[in-house]
């Protein structure tokens, strides 16, 4: 047998795709899979969270209680109690034991924290001029509790977090980044959620006070003040002009009376000694 010297043919054992092309294809596949899982897990998380019993929510609330450190305000808690007492007997609000915490932050905002805590930022209290305005803000947050919006967003955020944990592991920077982005208690609500909470708030305000006075006062002031540095509430909530229009439409369609508000003699939430 004759031996013929021949160079090895390298063409069969190595791929002929450029590694970056392969990376792009695999990355695109991963992105499509991630989006699919994100949507499915987000939907499942939201579905489950919206049906979470209040007792379990309290357990969750005890674990996130330190997120908004502040002073408990018995005055504001009293207002919440009065609002809850006037809500219909079937309302899920009766299952909660609400507390109101005043957080020393300049943002004009309030947050519904799982477990029945309403965190009100100092900036909002400084803006409030009447008890009716405070009732409106608190009733708006109660609306988020009644519709379980605060849990829906948390449940939706669980999707990408679980995905990150599965793909990258527990001690990975990617998982941590995703968790920081998605598991925030200050999650933004959708436009519809905010509008529904506003409608809920007007109804509750009228049930408690007998009239809708003060429902739009705070938003009016914010809209007028909105300069180059928009307060936080403007960034995370729908435009105040839209909210005012929708709230006034609600008041008009239900025929709610609007009477003068009761002004606050001192900035809300501050103890009398100050």
């Amino acid at each position: 047998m004759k031996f013929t010297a021949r160079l090895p043919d390298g063409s069969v054992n190595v791929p002929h795709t450029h590694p970056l092309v392969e990376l792009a294809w695999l990355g695109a596949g991963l992105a499509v899979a991630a989006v699919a899982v994100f949507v499915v897990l987000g939907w499942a998380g939201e579905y489950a969270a919206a049906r979470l019993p209040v007792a379990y929510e309290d357990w969750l609330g005890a674990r996130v209680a330190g997120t908004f450190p502040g002073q408990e305000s018995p005055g504001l808690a009293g207002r919440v109690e009065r609002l809850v007492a006037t809500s219909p007997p079937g309302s899920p609000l009766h299952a909660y034991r609400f507390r109101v915490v005043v957080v020393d932050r300049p943002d004009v905002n309030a947050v519904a924290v799982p477990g029945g805590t309403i965190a009100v930022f100092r900036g909002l209290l400084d803006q409030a001029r009447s008890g009716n305005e405070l009732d409106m803000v608190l009733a708006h947050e109660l609306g988020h509790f009644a519709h379980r919006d605060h849990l829906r967003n948390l449940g939706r955020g669980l999707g990408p977090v679980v995905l990150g944990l599965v793909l990258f592991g527990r001690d990975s920077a990617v998982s941590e980044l995703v968790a920081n982005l998605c598991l925030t208690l200050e999650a933004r609500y959708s436009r519809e959620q905010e509008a529904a909470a506003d409608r809920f708030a007007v109804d509750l305000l009228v049930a408690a006070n007998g009239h809708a006075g003060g429902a739009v006062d705070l938003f009016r002031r914010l809209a007028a003040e909105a300069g180059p540095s928009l307060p936080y509430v403007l960034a995370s909530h729908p435009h105040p002009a839209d909210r005012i229009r929708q709230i006034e439409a609600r008041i008009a369609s239900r025929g709610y009376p609007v009477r003068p508000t009761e002004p606050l003699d001192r900035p809300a939430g501050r103890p009398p000694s100050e």
Partner: protein
Amino acid sequence: MLEIVLNNLGLFLFVGLAVLGYFAGGLAERRHYRSIREREAELVHLPVVSSEDILPDRPVARSCLVTGSVVVSIDYFKRILASLRNLFGGRVGAYETLVDRARREAVLRMKEQARRRGACMVLNLRLETAVVGRSADKKRGLGSVEVVAYGTALVPPRG
């Protein structure tokens, strides 16, 4: 900016290592293939067969064992590519070039040894492979692979 980098150090390290792996690993691979092709052309006239009983048509004075062994490591970029491939299945091209280089390099080293011994032919070529390194069988480690080529070198009488 610095704060963002420091807060997500792991992530930036990951991307940085991947970029480093792509360029450094790519450069090493191109240079290695160039060297492999040159040496293969140089040693092409030394026959190596996997058969046991093909004898050359000239007298053989003695025979000896010749071996060539290579250990290569994957780079970070290849590891990412391969772990993505693990999700979807299919041909792990990132590792194929690596194993191809290791195998051809091992055979070349064996042939170089055979030539130094004055061999005219290598019979019974065998290739073995092993996974090397403490972290090689772990999920998160960078693994290395060893390829050993060995065969029987036939040396013709002197003169």
